């Protein structure tokens, strides 16, 4: 990676951003990618490589009869080839029951206990249904899954998810695919401050500054798809997101200056010239 994408932080001798650890597994990148929205696998591959991600979502869908000839690439093959850990999701599920069965199918199909748990309330808002979500999370944790739930930006629901044993919580910044960024930064901070499991901002990211803000608010990672796959130049945006997540992480740990109501001169106020102009 380094030869293709120079890490400017490392080049200047500063410590590289630390690993994101989920359920004891260290991930070298704090950027989790989705694969939805990419027009084809070639574009997706370039974007995934540019993002530096080590964890990437896939959805589970019925096998179609026209699956293509032998050897035709699939997203499954692509992730395997790139050495990226797959994170199957339960996208499209509207009840705990559906989500649990989908997770069980995903575990069998993908050979991983990790599941991005999505239980949506309806097809219009695509917002999580917190009641069904917590119920599904509890069942899946009991069944041995490593559960990463997509949830609202509600600190109480986040706490419930943590209490039932989720390995991370993934609050939304704004609705899926909206690109509206982080609508309630104070709630995200409240979730991140209290959580003892990683907090991954999921959904709503539109551009790099949104991803940086998520990290500055205290998130441990960012999950995004559309912001990259639907950008005019996905590879360029993937790199922007990678750098933004790193920059935000560094800034969050660098101790930002307090906000002030008024200006504070940064140049010395003594020794000023006395010019008779």
């Amino acid at each position, binding site marked *: 990676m380094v030869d293709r994408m120079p890490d400017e932080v490392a080049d200047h001798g500063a410590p590289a951003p630390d690993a994101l650890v989920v359920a004891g597994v260290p991930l070298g990148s704090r950027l989790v990618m989705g694969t939805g929205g990419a027009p084809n696998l070639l574009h997706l591959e370039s974007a995934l490589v540019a993002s530096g991600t080590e964890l990437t979502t896939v*959805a589970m*869908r019925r096998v179609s009869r026209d699956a293509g000839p032998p050897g035709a690439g699939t*997203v499954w093959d692509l992730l395997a080839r790139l050495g990226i850990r797959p994170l199957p999701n339960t996208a499209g599920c509207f009840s705990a029951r559906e989500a649990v069965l989908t997770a069980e*199918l995903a575990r069998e199909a*993908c050979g991983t206990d990790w599941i991005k748990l999505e239980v949506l309330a309806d097809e219009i808002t695509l917002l999580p249904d917190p009641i069904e979500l917590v119920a599904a999370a509890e069942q899946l944790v009991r069944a041995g899954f490593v559960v990463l739930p997509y949830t609202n930006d509600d600190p109480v629901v986040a706490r419930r998810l943590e209490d039932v044993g989720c390995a991370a919580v993934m609050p939304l910044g704004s609705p899926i695919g909206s690109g509206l960024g982080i609508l309630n930064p104070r709630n995200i901070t409240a979730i991140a401050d209290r959580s003892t499991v990683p907090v991954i901002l999921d959904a709503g990211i539109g551009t790099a500054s949104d991803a940086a803000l998520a990290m500055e608010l205290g998130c441990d990672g960012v999950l995004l798809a559309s912001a990259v796959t639907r950008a005019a130049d996905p590879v360029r945006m993937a790199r922007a997101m990678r750098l933004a997540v790193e920059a935000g992480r560094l800034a969050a740990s660098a101790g930002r200056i307090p906000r002030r109501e008024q200006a504070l001169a940064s140049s010395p106020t003594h020794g000023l010239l006395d010019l008779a102009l």
Partner: protein
Amino acid sequence: MTRVVLNGEERRLTGADDLASVVASVVAPVLPAPGDTACGSEAPTGIAAAVNDRVVPRSRWASTLLRDDDRIELVTAVQGG
């Protein structure tokens, strides 16, 4: 002749009525070719099957006999999320 519902479509099984045969008739193109190191091993292929809302592990596909009205879901990992 066994009648099942495969991914929401009615299907009459003209050949063997075990799950492995049904799966092979649909997903042969996307499963590893014979001789591929992954074939027959436990390596995940991105494909899974459920019968009547219960997941059937790949190791049991061949021994799972289908009956009339069984609902089979055959799913694979696709782009998403």
